[in-house]
């Protein structure tokens, strides 16, 4: 991203180490992203029958009412989702970082759980609660004779998407808020600013990198997401159109790939726009006061209001998971506000197999998260701190991964790596490592944005000081930059890890045997039959708890670190 303009950069020539880093990352992205996706997307530029290069398919795209309508719907839904997601995330982020609020840790974790929406079961649970004949509407209809179309049309998509993706804003904004130097706030207070004005003029602008990182992710993610519109049966949006066309049997329609290209273009444009918004502004703070913003104590009344707001928001955003929990204990749940009866049999059914799924998921998702943080951190550093040629291309390529439908990447991997055989005769594409790499590529943009925001808040003068004192570049990175970025790196890891843990679309193509399967695949296998609904939900609950525990653990680590920093001062 063109963020380099934010701080006057020393005109340092590219060092061999930096060139090496760029080459290695470029090679990685080329092999595991550009080439596999390119082999598929190439179709978009070929002419039917002759195979000659052409742009006629793009002209067709803009001549088709359906695609034009889909395009505008997608833009509208993404924009509105950002607005609503911000409305949910802002109060939670501010309350937990600016105030002495008990249970901040719980809120930070629970507020994160919505990202972990297991495929299929999450959808069923949402329908059972908010659908046309879900719990809420059945009760409303009984009491008042009305129904609210939560889950219908574009507004339904906006509703579900903001509940699902607001954690992107929450986690990035919270990290930013924690990183703001207390002295900034104190200076403003000394000058007579307080309350909302202080927040609006000082605190929020300083947290801007985090907010923009989150908001742009929400926009792009919603723009490229196909699962939610499809579960609500909204088909006139771009991502579902691409998916429907790419996955139909026997069709050799280039339009699916044309749409993929357009999704990629819009995603990169949105990221570029968020970078432009930040251009010429400096968000870094020099002194590390430790412990971030000062935490104000709430009065009894304020405290009651705060708890009320938080409880309300959490109830809303966690409702899909409450539904999921009910579903996992339900015998039959059909056209009634609550299940007919409860049982634990579903857990018994999945118990034997789930340990294998959990083990696979943890391995795949943590390796993918780790790869993402390393590469994301490296790209962020290269773009923000160096002038190496091609650094922005790395950023754009990594961001484009967000817009490539998982199934396209999956097929691309099969095409690229299936011909390569291992010594024992099995194709390379069938190795479980490929699943990890596919997941890492798919989730790289999340970690990248978090690393970006984290690095933007670290002032370069700290690094300069270290270098003036004789530290080498490597040593500076290791001793100064990395420690200061820890929060952001962890945020990136957690986002990548938890979303990779429930990813299905690319893995479905690459999983070769049940013993290699992650939990999302196990869920998919159950969710194809009426009797499998309960066990599927049980597996979903297990997945959510597992990922939430890992998240809780990493938050605990952050909090402890922050406290340690605070007391050290």
């Amino acid at each position, binding site marked *: 991203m063109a963020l380099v303009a934010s701080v006057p950069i020393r005109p340092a020539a590219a060092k061999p180490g930096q060139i090496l880093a760029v080459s290695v990352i470029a090679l990685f992205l080329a092999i595991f992203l550009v080439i596999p996706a390119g082999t598929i997307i190439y179709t978009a530029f070929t002419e039917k029958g002759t195979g000659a290069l052409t742009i006629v398919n793009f002209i067709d795209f803009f001549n088709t009412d359906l695609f034009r309508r889909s395009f505008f719907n997608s833009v509208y839904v993404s924009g509105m989702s950002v607005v609503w997601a911000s409305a949910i995330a802002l109060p939670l982020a501010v309350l937990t970082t600016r105030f002495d609020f008990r249970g901040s840790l719980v809120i930070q974790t629970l507020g994160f759980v919505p990202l972990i929406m297991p495929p299929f079961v999450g959808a069923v649970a949402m*329908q059972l609660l908010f659908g046309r004949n879900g719990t809420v509407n059945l009760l409303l209809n009984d009491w008042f004779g009305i129904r609210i179309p939560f889950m219908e049309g574009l507004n339904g998509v906006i509703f579900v998407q903001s509940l699902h993706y607001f954690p992107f804003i929450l986690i990035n904004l919270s990290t930013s808020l924690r990183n703001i130097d207390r002295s900034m706030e104190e200076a403003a207070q000394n000058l007579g600013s307080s309350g909302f004005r202080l927040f609006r003029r000082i605190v929020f602008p300083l947290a801007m990198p985090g907010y923009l990182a989150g908001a742009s992710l929400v926009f792009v993610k919603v723009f490229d997401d196909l699962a939610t519109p499809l579960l609500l049966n909204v088909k006139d949006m771009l991502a579902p159109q691409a998916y429907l066309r790419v*996955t139909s*049997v026997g069709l050799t329609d280039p339009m699916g790939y044309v749409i993929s290209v357009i999704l990629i273009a819009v995603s990169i444009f949105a990221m570029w726009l968020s970078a432009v918004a930040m251009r010429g502004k400096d968000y870094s703070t020099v002194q590390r006061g430790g412990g971030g913003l000062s935490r104000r104590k709430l009065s009894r009344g304020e405290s009651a209001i705060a708890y009320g707001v938080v409880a309300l928001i959490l109830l809303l955003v966690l409702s899909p998971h409450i539904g999921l929990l009910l579903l996992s204990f339900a015998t039959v749940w*059909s*056209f009634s506000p609550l299940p007919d009866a409860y049982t634990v049999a579903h857990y018994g059914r999945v118990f034997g197999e789930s340990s294998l799924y959990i083990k696979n998921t943890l391995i795949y998702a943590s390796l993918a998260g780790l790869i993402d943080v390393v590469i994301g951190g490296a790209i962020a550093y290269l773009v923000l701190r160096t002038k190496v040629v091609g650094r922005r291309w790395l950023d754009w390529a990594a961001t484009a991964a967000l817009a490539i439908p998982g199934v396209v990447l999956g097929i691309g991997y099969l095409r690229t790596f299936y011909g390569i055989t291992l010594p024992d005769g099995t194709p390379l594409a069938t190795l479980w490592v490929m699943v990890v790499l596919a997941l890492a590529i798919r989730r790289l943009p999340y970690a990248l944005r978090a690393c970006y925001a984290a690095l933007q808040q670290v002032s370069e003068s700290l690094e300069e000081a270290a270098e003036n004192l004789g530290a080498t570049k490597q040593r500076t990175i290791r001793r100064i930059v990395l420690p200061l970025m820890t929060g952001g790196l962890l945020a990136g890891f957690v986002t990548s890890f938890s979303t990779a843990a429930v990813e299905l679309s690319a893995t479905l193509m690459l999983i070769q045997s049940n013993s290699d399967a992650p939990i999302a695949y196990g869920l998919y296998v159950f969710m*194809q039959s009426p009797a499998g609904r309960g066990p599927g939900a049980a597996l979903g609950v297990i997945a959510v708890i597992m990922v939430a525990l890992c998240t809780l653990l990493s938050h605990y680590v952050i909090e402890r670190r922050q406290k340690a920093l605070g007391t050290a001062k």
Partner: protein
Amino acid sequence: MLKTIAAAMLMSAAFIVTAHAQDGGKVTIVTSFSKDVTDPFKAGFEAANPGFTLDVQNKSTSSGVKYIDETKVNNQVDLFWASAPDAFDSLKSKELLAKFTPSVTGLPEKVGSYPVNDPDGFYFGFAASGYGIMSNDRYLEANNLPKPAEWGDLAKPEYFDHVAIAAPSRSGTTHLTIETILQGEGWDKGWGTLKGIGGNLQQVTERSFGVPDAVNSGQTGIGIVIDFFAFSAQASGFPVSFAYPSVTTVVPANIGIVANAPNQAGAEAFVNYILSEKGQEVLLEPAIRRLPINPALYAKAPEGFPNPFKDPRFQSMITFDSDVSKKRTDVVDTLFDQLISFQLENLKGATQAIHAAEKALAANEQPAARALLDEAKALAAAMPITAEEAASKETRDAFTGGEEKTARQAELEQKWAAFATEKYAAAKAKAEEALNLVD
């Protein structure tokens, strides 16, 4: 952290090794069937054929076909196992299936009027499935709706916004249902029925199981589904009913051996097992409930279980011509998408206006208004192409990426969509005019 990761990597390395340490008797099967179906078959097969292990890879039918196609250079899959015959046709035409003669003999050649096996021996029917109407009893009761019995019923005004269907382009089984209606009622009348039902749709789902799922949970009242979805839901305790309309067909769900199977012997053993009496009996388990292809098994079936070999309903079912179907598959699916799925709002608007005018006219018959209403109905039912055009080479080539340059699929789609938008708007206007005349 690093230690944990190292441990994780070691662990995973260990399980990869164990996964490959099996005795060469691994039979790999790609299937669209759920765990409820595959688990009992796996258990039964492994018990009946010691030494073999069945490795089930679950993929949707369309990704399964794509997967086998993409991996043919170094095929690792022994069997493909799914419902929709068109998926097998597609595999067969790409030469991805192997010929085989099962050792099990004495099975019927036809179920209803559909041949059980591929005439060339590339794939075999192992169970029969009929298409019909599934409904949620609680939903119908709460909305005071009678149980629908025929396709035509679903077009009635009282079912407005209560029906769900899977898009035929996404669900091979729904495609066959649509094709059955088109063949049974003829192109124009059939599309009239389909659009009538289309106007009452609450949702068009993108996967077959989406419909029974919505009916089971009561999100929608009525769904057009394949029979076993309803039977297995009933067996799981859901309050749902099922009816076979008179214009329907039973078609076989199939299994086929993939060309160049790494474990040909194992693949053959599984096909023989699934066609054997023991294998067929598994189909009757409550969570599966599919109609066995072996007529002898029906003696063991539960009370009320339909028997396509005896039941007179099935004998009168129409002959399904798979050649006709094959020729126009893509065209029919795309027409459904462009005229119904992606035009749902417009079609529903027109349908609602027609229903309103119909109701008003029933109370106060007026010839002028009746004429307008008939015009409106004709407009709503109008088709952009005829049956002959749909099966013509020019149209088909647009979808298959043929050698010659023809119209592009996107051009045809836009033409048909524009046609539909215009006709539905005109139909709505006429129907409203009719209503105004009566009022």
